[in-house]
Every structure is written in C-alpha cells, then in structure tokens.
C-alpha cells in the first residue's frame, strides 16, 4: 500500500514549488478550488500531470471504481495519456475487475512513462504471473529487484513463480530470503507448500511452526500446522494447534473436521458428532465430513445410518477408495458379505496398491462360503506387493 500513498501525495503543494515556472503560464487551471482553500498562491502552480492524483487515490482506496474511472479518463484526456499515476490506478482497477490483459497493457504503458518505477514493473510482473506466464513474470521481477533490492514482496513472488515452474530449490531460496527480510505469513505458507511438494513433512512443520510464532492468531496457519502434526503422528501437539485454531474461528470447517477425527480416534463419538454438526452447516457437500460422520455412527453401532452417510459420501466423491473401504467394513460387520465384496472390489479397482483392501476382500469371500481357493488367491495377491 505504501507505494500508492506516496504517489498519491505527489499532487500536494510541497512539490509544486519546483514546477512553478513551467505551469504558471496556463490560466485555465483553477478547477481545484473546490477541495482547497485558495490563499495567496493560486493552485495552478501544481504540476499539471499530477494535479488530481490525490483525488484518484482517494476514490480508489474507497473502492469507488466508477468515479475513479471517469476521473482517470478526464485526466488522461487532459494530459494526452501522460499521467503515470492515473494509468497505474486504472491498471489496478482493471485487474480487480478481472481484465488482466488490459491491466497488463496499462502497466506496461506506465513503465514506458517511468522506467524507474519499481511499483509499475512489479505490477507488470504480477499481471504476467496472473496470466500464467511465469517465466516472463520471473524476468520482470528480476528487473524490479534491480530497481529496488531488499524488498520481500518481490522475492516472495519470485519464489511463487519458481514453484509454478517446478524449480523448488530456487523457490526455497527466494522464499527464505523473503522471510528473512520480513516474516510474512503468506511467504511461510508458500515455503511450507514447497516442502510439502517435495514430500518433506518435517521441514514443512518447522516452517509452519515459525509462521505460527509470528502470527499466533491465524486459524488457517494453526489448522495446517495441526494437520501436519497429525500426519507426523504427534497427536497431542496436533490437538493443541487445532484447539487454538478453533478458539479463533469456531466455524472453520477444516479445523472442525480434523479435531473431530481426533476425538473420534479416542472413541468419544458423541463429542465428535456434535463437532461435525457444526461443520455440516458450513459445508454440507464435503465427502470427508460425511465419511467421518458415517464412521462415527458405525462406532456407536448404528449401522444403517452409517451406511446411509457413507453412501452419501461416495455419491459426492466417487473416486475416494477410503470411503468404499469403510463401506465394505461396515457391511462385513453386518454380515452382508456380498455387498461388502462389491464395495471392496470397487475400492480395489480404484486403488490396487493397498494390502489391507485385499485382506478384507479375502475375508468377505471366505465368509461368503465360496471355495477357499479364491480367497487364498486374493490373499496371495495381497502378499505380493
């Protein structure tokens, strides 16, 4: 934000003294009188191009885009497209309206007007990034970096571009630099993502831990940290993180789901179900949620309700083999071996790498009073990895 404020203030009289001579000749300027008290010196001594920057800025930060656009149009007509700040703001507005290619053009124009403005170069790079042209974006960021080194934002964005280009080493380097300049949570999130993409859980956890130290009240960070701890098997720490996430945002669906799953693991089904009830109001179409509810009910011995919930889950996510696995399990315990066989077979079709699945399949077949030869064969497949 600081960039805009600076440019916006340029229109104020402290700079006007320098250009006095150049603009004193024009007489038709005193349009500005409405917003200012004219005292002694007349306002027409402000540099013409930047005269209304403050007004544009004011409208822009109020999100009054329509007025802003009209004003910018007037300004550009008056200055024949030479007003850098107006072009810059128009670019920002266009981007927020979703017209990235237009905004890219505008920022490029701003750069040609003032090639030393790192803000404009940064915006060009950002537009390129949003358009998915990561290589060009990276080049533009390099340029911006040469204009203003030591800026965490540029480094952060370079890191993100590297992630998209799958250059993870470079990404880690850039993001670490960015973090060392300014400990921003988004840089931490991206850094954690890189580690996760590389499959390095421990490092990712470390990163998130430092991120949480810097931003102790962000439910998103806390939830992710909790999930990572869960993955690492450190239940206590995970529960702590998730608990604090829920104190900050009691309706965070992800956190509720994770916390509910942990409570469920401890066999406290009623508490878990009450947690899930909150989550169901927020995201009624989450297959994971319905799966967990189903397994909760299974734990409580309500088999029919469990099956109904699990079926809804698999209706919502037909590719999730774990739900099918659970369905098979519930049917097995109900002694519905044929149904169990079908669900387990479907799970095997989707994910043939799990030995456990084959085991259950074999159990189902064995109980189904078939000749023992087939289950044996299935078990043998399970044993050969």
């Amino acid at each position, binding site marked *: *934000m600081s*960039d*805009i404020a600076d440019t916006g203030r340029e229109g104020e009289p402290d700079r006007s003294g320098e250009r006095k001579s150049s603009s004193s000749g024009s007489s038709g300027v005193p349009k500005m009188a409405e917003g200012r008290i004219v005292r002694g010196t007349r306002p027409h001594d402000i540099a013409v191009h930047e005269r209304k920057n403050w007004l544009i800025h004011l409208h822009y930060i109020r999100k009054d885009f329509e007025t802003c656009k009209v004003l910018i149009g007037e300004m550009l007509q008056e200055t024949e497209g030479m007003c850098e700040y107006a072009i810059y703001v128009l670019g*920002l507005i266009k*981007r*927020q309206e*979703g017209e*990235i*290619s237009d905004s890219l053009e505008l920022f490029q124009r701003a750069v040609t007007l003032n090639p030393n403005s790192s*803000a404009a170069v*940064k*915006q060009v790079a*950002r537009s390129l*990034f*949003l*358009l*998915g042209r*990561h290589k060009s974006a990276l080049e533009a960021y390099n340029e911006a970096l040469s204009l203003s080194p030591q800026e965490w*934002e540029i480094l952060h964005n370079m890191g993100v571009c590297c992630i*998209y280009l799958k250059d993870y080493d470079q990404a880690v380097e850039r993001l670490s630099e960015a973090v060392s300049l300014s400990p921003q949570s988004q840089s931490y999130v991206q850094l954690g993502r890189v580690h996760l993409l590389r499959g390095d859980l421990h490092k990712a956890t470390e990163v998130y831990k430092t991120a949480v130290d810097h931003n102790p009240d962000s439910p998103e960070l806390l939830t992710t940290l909790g999930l990572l701890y869960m993955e690492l098997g450190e239940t206590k720490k995970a529960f702590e993180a998730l608990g604090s996430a829920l104190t900050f945002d009691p309706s965070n*669906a992800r956190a509720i789901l994770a916390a509910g799953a942990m409570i469920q693991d401890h066999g406290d089904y009623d508490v878990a179900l009450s947690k899930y009830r909150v989550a169901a109001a*927020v*995201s*009624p*179409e*989450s297959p994971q949620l319905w799966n967990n509810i189903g397994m909760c009910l299974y734990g409580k011995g309500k088999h029919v309700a469990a099956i*109904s919930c699990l*079926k*809804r889950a*698999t*209706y*919502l996510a*037909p*590719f999730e*083999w774990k739900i*099918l696995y659970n369905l098979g399990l519930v049917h097995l315990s109900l002694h519905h071996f044929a*149904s169990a066989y*079908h669900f387990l*077979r*479907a*799970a*095997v*079709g*989707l994910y043939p790498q799990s030995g456990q699945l084959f085991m259950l399949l074999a159990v189902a077949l064995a109980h189904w009073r078939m000749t023992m030869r087939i289950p044996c064969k299935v078990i043998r497949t399970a044993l050969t990895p």
Partner: protein
Amino acid sequence: MDPLYMANSLFRRRRFEDCVQVCTEILEANPYDQAAWFLKLRSLTEQTYVDEVDMDEEGIAEAFLDDTAIADVARPGTSLKGPPGTTSRGLSQGIRPVSQSGRPLSGFVRPGTQGGRPGTMEQALRTARTAMTARPVTSASGRHVRLGTASMLTEPGGPFVDVSKLNMSKYSQRPALAKALFEYLFHHENNVRAALDLAALATEACQFGDWWWKIQLGKCYYRLGMYRDAESQFKSSLKHFSTIDMFLYLGKVYVKLDQPLSALDYYKRGLEKFPNNTSLLIAIARIHEGLNDLDSAVEYYRQVLKYDSTCVEAIACIGTHHFYNDQPEIALRFYRRLLQVGVYNAELFTNLGLCCFYAQQYDMAISCLLRGLQLSPNDDNTADVWYNIGHITLAVGSVSLAYQCFKLALTSNNSHAEAYNNLGVIEWRRGRGEQAMTCFQSSASISPHLYQPHYNLAAASEKTGNLHSSYSCVKKSLEVFPEHLDSAELMKQLQQHFAAL
C-alpha cells in the same frame, strides 16, 4: 331406422366421424334441418376438443417477450422466474442435479414448468443436452394451428360453417345453439376472435347472469394473451357459481402473470369448496415445485396419491424426491408402482436401474439398464442411459469402463454436457490435463447452467497457474451455485492474488 336417431346414437357412442357422415347426408336432403346441423356441430367439436385446463406449452415468444409479469426483480419466493441457483429449501445442487433453468430436476417433465423463464434470448433458445431448442417458437404454432388446418381437410365441400357470414347477434339469442356454436368456433375453427364476439353478445343477451359465458370469455381473453381481462372474467363468474375448472383457470392466469402466491391462494380456496380434489392438489404441488419448495410439493403429491393412486406425475415426483434423499429403496417402490400403472419406457427403466444399484441389487440394476437401452427411442435417451451406466461403473470401481460409457454417451449425443464433464474428470485423473481442460470447456459451453464444469475448469486452471481464466470460471460457477463452498474458497484465494499489490 330414422337417420337422426341413428346419428344421435352414434354421437352417444362417441363415433363422431360416422355421426358427421350421417348428419351430412341428412343436411344434403334438407339443408334447414336444425337438429342435424346441431348434432354435426357438436360431433365436429368433440373430435378436436382439448381440455383447456391442462398446462400448455410456453413458447419462446411468450417466455421472452413477457410483459405481463409485474416485477422484473421479484422478491424471493414470490416468483416462478427465480434466478438460477437460488435453491431456497430442499436439496442443494451438489446432491440433486438441476435442469436448464437452474431448478432441481423434476420427476415428471411437463410443459411450461420445465424450462422456467429465461433471462436472455440466448438462454431461451438454448436447451440443455440438445443442439436444438426444446421450446416451440410460440405456443400458437403448437396444437392450435394444427387443429385449425385439420378442419379444412375434413371438409371437401368447403367449411361447414362459414364464420365470416355468421350472424352472431341472431345466434346469441338462442342459448343452447350459441353454446354449441361457441365451442365449435373455439375448438374446431380455432377462430378465437369470432368466438369472443359471440360470447360477448351472448353474455349480454342473458344480462351477464350466466357463469358459463363468463368462463368462455375468460378463455378467449387468455388465448388472446389478455390475462388481466381473463382474470376479471373468471373472478366474476366465480361469484355466480364455482366449479373446479374456474379455480384451475384462475391459477393458470396467475402463473402467466408470474404471481404464484395468488395462484396458490385460489387453489386453496378451491380446495375449501372441493376438498381433496386431485387436480387442484396437483396444481398446488406443481407451483411449490416451481418455487423450489420441494418438501411441500412432495407433501401435496402424497395427498394426491391418497385419493388417486394411479397418478403418474405424483408417483414419479415422489420417487425422484426419495432417490435424491438417499432412500433408493423407497424410490424403487414408487418406480415399481409406475411400472404396474403401465408406464413402460426407457426413462423409467433407467431410473429403476439406478435405484436398484444404489439399493445394492446389482443383478437387477444391470438388466434394468439394458432394458432401458433397448427401449430408448432416440439418441438423446440412449446417451442418458449410457451416462448413467457410466456412473454405475464408476461406483463399481472400473474407471476405464466408465470412460468408455461416457464416450458412448457422447457418440449418441454430441452435446451431452454432463458426460463431457465426467470424461474430463477421468482424463484429469489420468494426468492428461490438456484433454481434461478441453472436455471441461466444451461441457461449460454446452450447458452453462451446470456449476461443475465451471468449477473444474477453474480448479484446473488454478493448478496450472493461469489465475486469470480460473477467476473468470469460478465467477461463473458462483453465479450458478452461490452456496458452493469450494468455489467460494477458490474465489477468496484468487481475490487475494488480484487485490495484492
């Protein structure tokens, strides 16, 4: 035997063509035989008689150039127009698929209510799943005109009654003849304006005291598109006398005026006079369905079934409701009932197959779907059956078979958007991003009312880093389905990217 007696008997036995022939012979012998003339008039009318109470087709012209609706932006719950995606009560789009207008899929396709009212001309012309439009251009070109021309064919010696030479005021003085003549003009000749003249004169002749003529006036006004006049005629006839028809007509007028709540009001008043009348109950259920209030709609359909256990529409709608409420076993019972009632088509067998599958009766499911394939009358239907088979194979875990099924659905109907979408998902799972994107794109362009392809496209673009196109897609997805959580979350993420400096 006396030929007139013979004709009368034929008429009573509903052998109208023979009756007309006999009457024509009598009239050839004696052109001034009024009894024969009257009988011929009646039997010609009976041949083309259509119950006006029935829902009629809403054409593009009516739907789009609709200037009778009161509010352009109606308050929620007071308009049948309903912007797509406002599922107020009942199930969300994630569970129950929607029809082209963004309304939950109904169990029974009926004219008028199926399409909803389109917002733009483009939307009006385009139909889900087909390259052609499902709406007739205007309802006047539907059954009415066809009936008009049919009358010409049956009359080799010129038309039976020359409408332009009729002396309306003379006939209007004779009530019995006038009524028959009116029906002839309205139904057989399809000359609404002449019928209106006659009705106006006749109602004057009986000092505005006959409710029958008022209804007929209302019918004429309705046919001419003057809904407010029709409304006042029906209302005034209701003061003299009440029949079930009157309430149904009034409801129809209010549906045209897009005032479903007034229609409901009149239907309920009708129910007070005629308790448990199934036509009124069905009409109420239809309106509730149009207002996306599926639970109450099902409630009324249940009442219908109490009094008429063979009502196909009610059975089908309740069955669909149960199916999408995770009760396939109960839905199966309703669909089996439909089979008993005598419905025997591809759609029913497909539904039966799906219910059997979700109720875990696998052997039945396959045979039902096979029967569905055999019975399907056209490519569109075949595509739907293959699409459903694809779903079942997915649930059984054989992805490659599902892939084949969706491909087959597309060979039958090249604009099956849902199949394209699912094909895209499978391609994406197989790691073929480019093909997947193409599939999503074609799906989204064929039916923009589905939120899934938009969201999939957005998610895929986000993964590949093209945030711009992702943003525009997720915006569309949220337009169609504002409550979709994943879309909303993606939107939030993207907006952060866009607003950041």
